[in-house]
C-alpha cells in the first residue's frame, strides 16, 4: 500500500513551501513514486512596482526576501545600468562584488551548519532545537560533538561575514550603497585593511573547518553521491564581473544538459516561464520574462503551486553553487546531494580567495560610480547570482516610470512545478525515486530538498499570541 506524506520542510506556520510525496514499493524497493513541490506564495511584488520611479526598484526588491536582499539589490541596479547603458568604474564593480561575495560566504556557512546539519546529526539539547528526526545518524558521539562545536563557531563566522559586508555596504541588510552606475561608498585604506582581516578569518574557517566537515559528511554519507541527482541540467547566469567591459567574470555563464562536462553558451532569449500547473492564466504561458505577465487565477484545474515554471530551451534547469562551479570548471564530479554540498563549500573558498584579490585592485581615490541617465522608454534586464542560484530582474519603462517588472529567483527554477509538457521541476525530479526507509519520517527526502538550499521565506512575518 502506498503512503502519502506531506513534508513541510521549510516552515512551521505560514506554509511557504511544501513537498507532497507518495511512497510505494517499486520493484521491491520502497521509494518515492510521485512528488509535488509547491510554493504557496503569489508573485505579487512585481505588480506593485508598476507606475513607480525606476530607481525605487532596488529598494523595494531588496525587501522581497529576508534572506537575499543583497542579490536583489545587485540585480535591480544591474538592470538600471543596462537601461542607461552605463559602464561601472572598477572601484564600484569591486565593492559590489565584495559585499555580494561576503553575503555568499556567510550564507553558505549558515546553510551547512544551520540548515543542513540537522538532517544528519541531532542538534544541541536546547531551544529551539527541540526535536528533529533522529534517524540514520552515522556520526559517532565524538564526531557529532565536533560538528556541534563547529556549528557554534559557524555562528560567529556568519557574523563576521555580515560585518565584512557592512564595511563597504554601510547599512546591512537593505544596503543603500548599490546604485545604478556604481556604488556610493568611497573606499579608504582603513576599510580595505578591515575587510582583509575578515576575509582571512573566513578563509581560515572555510579551509580548516567547513571544507573538512563537508568532506567528512560526503564520505560518511557516500551513498548520497548517488541520491537526489535529478536531470543533471545545470544553468548559471554567471556573476562577479572582474573587468569594466563585463567580459571576465569569476563565474562564467553557461549551461549543460544531462550532466555533460562540456558547457554551452547561455542566451537570455531562451528563457520562458510556463504556467500550466501554477495558478496563473494559461494565456500567459511560455512568455519570455521581458514580456512576462503575472495574472493569477484560482482555483484552476491541474494547478498546485503559486510558482511559475521557468525553463531554458524548454528544459527544467537546476541552479546554484554546483551549476556555477560546473560552468567555471572548478567542480564536475557529479550531480547529487553530496555534490551540491561539496560544490557549495569549495565555492565559499574560491569566492573568499577572489575577495582578497579584488581588495588589492581597489584604487583609493578613484571614482566609484558613473552618472546615469535612465531613459523614459525601453526594456532592460539584469542577470546575476544569489547564493542559491541564478537571479534575474526584467524591466520595462514607459513615460519614465516602471511599466512592467519580472523577477525570477533561484528557487523559482529549482522548486518549480511541472511545466506545460508535464516535465517535473528540477527538485521534483531529484526527489523522484528516492528510497525511503520510514514513510512517516522521510529524512532522505529532506536531505535532497535541503541540498538545494531552497529559499521561500519571502513574505509575511506575523507572530501569534497564545
Amino acid at each position, binding site marked *: 500500500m502506498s503512503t502519502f506524506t506531506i513534508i513541510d520542510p521549510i516552515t512551521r506556520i505560514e506554509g511557504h513551501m511544501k513537498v507532497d510525496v507518495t511512497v510505494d514499493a517499486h520493484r521491491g524497493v520502497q521509494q518515492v513514486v510521485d512528488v509535488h513541490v509547491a510554493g504557496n506564495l503569489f508573485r505579487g511584488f512585481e505588480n506593485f512596482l508598476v507606475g513607480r520611479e525606476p530607481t525605487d526598484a532596488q529598494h523595494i526588491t531588496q525587501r522581497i526576501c529576508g534572506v537575499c536582499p543583497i542579490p536583489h539589490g545587485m540585480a535591480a541596479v544591474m538592470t538600471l545600468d543596462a537601461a542607461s547603458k552605463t559602464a561601472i568604474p572598477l572601484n564600484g564593480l569591486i565593492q559590489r562584488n565584495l559585499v555580494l561575495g561576503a553575503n555568499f560566504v556567510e550564507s553558505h556557512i549558515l546553510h551547512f551548519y544551520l540548515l543542513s546539519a540537522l538532517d544528519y546529526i541531532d542538534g544541541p539539547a536546547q531551544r529551539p532545537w527541540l526535536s528533529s528526526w533522529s534517524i540514520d545518524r552515522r556520526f559517532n558521539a565524538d564526531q557529532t560533538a565536533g560538528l556541534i562545536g563547529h556549528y557554534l563557531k559557524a555562528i560567529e563566522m556568519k557574523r563576521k561575514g555580515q560585518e565584512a559586508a557592512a564595511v563597504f555596504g554601510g547599512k*546591512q541588510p537593505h544596503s543603500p550603497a548599490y546604485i545604478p552606475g556604481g556604488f556610493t561608498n568611497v573606499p579608504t585604506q582603513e576599510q580595505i585593511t578591515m575587510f582583509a582581516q575578515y576575509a582571512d578569518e573566513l578563509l581560515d574557517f572555510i579551509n580548516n573547518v567547513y571544507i573538512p566537515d563537508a568532506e567528512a559528511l560526503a564520505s560518511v554519507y557516500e551513498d548520497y553521491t548517488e541520491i537526489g541527482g535529478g536531470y543533471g541540467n545545470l544553468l548559471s547566469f554567471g556573476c562577479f564581473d572582474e573587468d569594466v567591459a563585463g567580459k571576465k567574470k569569476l563565474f562564467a555563464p553557461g549551461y549543460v544538459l544531462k550532466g555533460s562536462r562540456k558547457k554551452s553558451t547561455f542566451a537570455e532569449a531562451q528563457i520562458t516561464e510556463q504556467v500550466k500547473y501554477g495558478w496563473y492564466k494559461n494565456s500567459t504561458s511560455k512568455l519570455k520574462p521581458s514580456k512576462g505577465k503575472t495574472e493569477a487565477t484560482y482555483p484552476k484545474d491541474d494547478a498546485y503551486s503559486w510558482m511559475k515554471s521557468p525553463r531554458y530551451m524548454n528544459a527544467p534547469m537546476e541552479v546554484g553553487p554546483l551549476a556555477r562551479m560546473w560552468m567555471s570548471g572548478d567542480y564536475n564530479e557529479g550531480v547529487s546531494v553530496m555534490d551540491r554540498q561539496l560544490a557549495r563549500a569549495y565555492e565559499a573558498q574560491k569566492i573568499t580567495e577572489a575577495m582578497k584579490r579584488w581588495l588589492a585592485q581597489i584604487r583609493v581615490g578613484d571614482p566609484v560610480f558613473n552618472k546615469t541617465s535612465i531613459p523614459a522608454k525601453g526594456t532592460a534586464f539584469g542577470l546575476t547570482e544569489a547564493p542559491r542560484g541564478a537571479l534575474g530582474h526584467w524591466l520595462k519603462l514607459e513615460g519614465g516610470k516602471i511599466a512592467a517588472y519580472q523577477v525570477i529567483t533561484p528557487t523559482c527554477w529549482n522548486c518549480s512545478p511541472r511545466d506545460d509538457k508535464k516535465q517535473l521541476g528540477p527538485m521534483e525530479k531529484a526527489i523522484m525515486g528516492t528510497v525511503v526507509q520510514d514513510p512517516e519520517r522521510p529524512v532522505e527526502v529532506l536531505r535532497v530538498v535541503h541540498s538545494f538550499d531552497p529559499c521561500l521565506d519571502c513574505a509575511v512575518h506575523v507572530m501569534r499570541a497564545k
Partner: protein
Amino acid sequence: MNSNSKCRVWVAGLGNVLMCDDGAGVETARILAESPQSGVVVSEVGTAIMFYTNLISDAESILLIDAVTSGKKPGTVSLFSSEDMDESGKLWRSAHELSLLDAVDIFRHGKRPTIKIIGVEPERIEYGMELSPSIKKVIPEMLALARKTISEMACTNI
C-alpha cells in the same frame, strides 16, 4: 549592522513593509530611530532577521515591535513578554523560517534576555505598501508604549 552592537536595549521593528499592515513594526521603528537615545539601538529589521546577529547576541534586553495576531480588534495594541508567544507544536528543521525568538535562542544558546513585544493586531496582510487606516491611527499609541517600555528596560543609564 553598522550600529553599536553593545547596547542596553535593542528595539527591532519586524515585518514585511511590502505586505501592508505587516509593516507596522518597521514604520514604528523608523519613527523611533529619528530620536536617538543613549544605550538604545533601533533597527528596522523587516524580515532580514539573520542580518542582526551581533545585536541578537549582545543586547542586554530586546523590544520587538510587530504585527501580532491574537484575535483582537484590528488596531489593538498590546504588550507581551516572550513567554506569551505561541511556540507550541513547532518542529524546528530549518532556519529559513526562523523567528527572531528562535534566533535569540540559537545565538544565546537557549538563554533568553528580557524580551518584550509590542504587537498590533493587523487588519490586512496582503501585497501593498500602505498601512490600513485602523493601524495608521494607532502608530502614536505604539510609539508612546514603545518609549515607556524602553525607559523601563533601560532604567540604568550608561
